[in-house]
């Protein structure tokens, strides 16, 4: 083993002492200020700097969707966004789905319809579903399948994910029958 003489410092961030930039954003409703190297991916920023490990990494080509979060209410793959790009914006992760300690309709429905197995794709899947239902609380099966086509699941075969999202839609509709419902 060839080793340099540098002392080992515990890793405080994803990078090692390069040029840094300041980011100020809102994550799950709370203000966050941090210094990050410009190349830091949002997913690494969330997971490793903020400790929000519910957002997962399943690929390196933006195909799998395990890292899906909301950026100003729209689902994005956080592996394909730089942390510095989201300065001044609102990020919502799976940890922000619960409201006032109560599970969201999507979270409840994923449990009730057995819409998850290993749980790895689940946070991204639920973020995509939440945004779909905020636009369309009564999606057809093809509409649900189309919405989640950027989120891979290897365990469930999607049948129960589709059911869960439709069940969540029903919950949202019954909670807010007049407005059409917001997730």
């Amino acid at each position, binding site marked *: 083993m060839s080793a340099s003489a540098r002392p080992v410092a515990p890793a405080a961030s994803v990078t090692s002492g390069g040029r840094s930039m300041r980011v100020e954003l809102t994550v799950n409703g709370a203000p966050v200020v941090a210094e990050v190297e410009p190349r830091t991916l949002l997913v690494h920023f969330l997971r490793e700097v903020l400790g929000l490990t519910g957002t997962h990494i399943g690929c390196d080509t933006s195909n799998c969707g395990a890292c899906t979060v909301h950026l100003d209410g729209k689902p994005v793959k956080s592996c394909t966004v730089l942390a510095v790009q989201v300065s001044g914006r609102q990020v919502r992760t*799976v940890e922000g789905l619960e409201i006032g300690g109560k599970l969201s309709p999507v979270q409840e429905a994923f449990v009730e319809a057995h819409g998850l197995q290993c*749980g790895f794709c689940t946070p991204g899947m639920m973020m995509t579903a939440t945004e779909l239902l905020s636009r369309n609380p009564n999606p057809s099966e093809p509409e649900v399948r189309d919405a989640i086509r950027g989120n891979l699941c290897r365990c469930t075969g999607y049948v129960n994910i589709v059911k869960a999202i439709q069940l969540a839609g029903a919950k949202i509709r019954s909670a807010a029958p007049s407005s059409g419902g917001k997730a």
Partner: protein
Amino acid sequence: MSADVPRVKGGLGQSILRKEDQRFIRGKGNYVDDIKLPGMLYLDIARSPYAHAKITAIHTENTLKVPGVLAVVTGKDLEAAGLAWMPTLMSDKQMVLPTDTVMYQAQEVAAVVADSRYAAADGVAALEVDYDPLPVVVDPFKALEPGAPVIRTDRKEKSNHIWHWETGDRAGTDAAFDGAEVQVAQDLYIPRIHVSSMETCGCIAHMDSVNGRFTIYMTTQAPHAIRTVIALVTGLPEQNIRVVSPDIGGGFGGKVPVYPGYVLAAVASIKTGHPVKWIEDRSENLQADSFARDYHIHAELAASNDGKVAALRVKTLADHGYTDAAANPSKFPAGLFHIITGSYPFAKAFVEVDAAYTNKPPGGIAYRCSFRVTEAVYTIERMMDILAHRLKVDPAELRLKNFIPPEAFPFTSALGWTYDSGNYAGALRKAMEIIDYAGLRREQKEKRGRGELMGIGISSFTEIVGAGPSSTFDILGIKMFDSAEVRIHPTGKVIARFGTKSQGQGHETTYAQILAEELGIPADDIRVEEGDTDTAPYGLGTYASRSTPTAGAAASMAARKIRDKARRIAAHLLEVNPDDVEWKDYAFRVKGVPAKSKTMQEVAFAAYTNHPPGMEAGLEAVDYYDPPNMTYPFGSYICVVDIDPETGQVKVRRFVAVDDCGTIINPMIVDGQIHGGLTMGLAPALYEEIQYDESGNIHGGTFMDYLVPTAIETPHWETAKTVTPSPHHPIGAKGVGESATVGAPPAVVNAIVDALQPYGVEHIDIPVHPWKIWQILHTRTPTF
């Protein structure tokens, strides 16, 4: 069970919601990459661009200048410590890092350790390696030709042939073929595929030199076996080794092997004294981790003119890459491929497999399949359709004519397996009824009249799972039992620990259900833990659908041991003779006076506060369950496809899966397992394949090229069940995780070939991509 007694909450057969979901839906799962230890370093791996090359130099200077990089590990460093090679699970060996030659593209060449994830990657990018390319062998047939470049020059045998394995009656089978009225033969290639669990592999290794403890948090399906392997390979005392398998994001067989990255993280931790994390990228996972399948099969089937099967003869060439790193029981280098006589009473059968080295990654592991069962089922179920077409009989009729009848169980197959129970015709008839098979055939006839391409495919599979009986099954000499340790606390609540490890199957829920049924304690009051070798009893882990047949059985047996003691405590409390007390309707009751009773909770409290004189306090038991036989789940699947004549695109219009996994613990979870399994059966049938060009360059090494089905490709699966309990399992359960992956591919291909009957097609190799069909449609003249 008395009809008027309420069932225990969360007992057998109830679709209770999963306990584990509460953390997953909140983003509070605990996967390996979520764990962060103080002072943790990061390891990244430099990989070879060549499939076969001499390494002439590794230049580390620029890497060591990268800010944050602390060390580079090469094969020469490992060689000095005797760790350049490690054993595989199949009596072969594989490189941790090469000392002089790389043998497949993306092979590990060096490891970089840094104080951050990005710095480690920068260090890899800065590493310069000089290579001298060598001739590449990618085709296993060419690998065995005289004069082929020898890949494993480290071996005594200067050839690419690894082993020959055969089973069955060669002479008797040959004789049966000589006298047969009908013979069909077919070459079938089952290509290389990859499990692609959504979580890739990784670990955090920590050698605490002060306390002499080595801890590794690891994406492993078999933590206990890993602990013993570490002890045997390194000489570390086993009590000082702790393997923790936290939440696992899917395994499917891909997390059984030991990959070089794990060993490198361990070496780096020993060298630096810090915890070291290694998490592979998806591309590394696809390109370098163990693959599945890669079987070149030649199958022949002999039958009588009236369609009764007589004999089966199969010759196979297995491509193992540069090392045999499959994960099969020691006795069976080709796994359980000899379940290949399937659901039919062949009088004679003979199977032989030869294995070859090529310049590809190692493996031959499962892909949600019990040791090569998928290859076997695909072969026999395709051959049955080929025979049906030859005899011009309906494939359903041919199967119904041949099935092993229910009264023939236990049935011993021509290749020596004793099937525990089955009702194959029952499952097929149910599937035919649900899908309206007769109606579909009428529709198909009309459509053929109009030149439309519609196909119906059947697969009536028999699985073999639950490895396994210690007389036959071991991994590296360790018998394939599994275990449960159950402890009832004074307040009647339970903690239970197991030697298996869930990767999404829902063990925390289903094991609790078995215990609830056996102990009369609600499933909500039972906590299930797995995956920490410091606390869980020894077991061989979760793969090959073995958890319910082995550890699930151990749960029952441990609970029954507890009941034995509890009955004596109950008798003490009831002030009667123990022989006058029986366990009935979830309570200990005085025989003939059922109202005089004690619950398990009451007994548990007494076990710590008021146990009989002379009896030990406490209420707990451990069981190491050695199954008397394998279990044999089965089912019948029917797939309906429509093919677009313009594009060759296959659309799965309907897919009905009737499964029989014996006693059902949780119907909701069983259905979920079937849905997922079907999707992993559809995937290789239509989409997934890892290919190599002549230079050994991988095609399909990222999710851009390797098509894991999305919700768009995946049809709406329809499921149903029959229930034929296993006679030898304590609760009659058989295991279900892999049935659908095993059973689905031939149903899909049989449907496609059925649709193309007017074109005289007998077989198309998987994956059936549209171009393969398009070529048939444009080169052959149909006879509609």
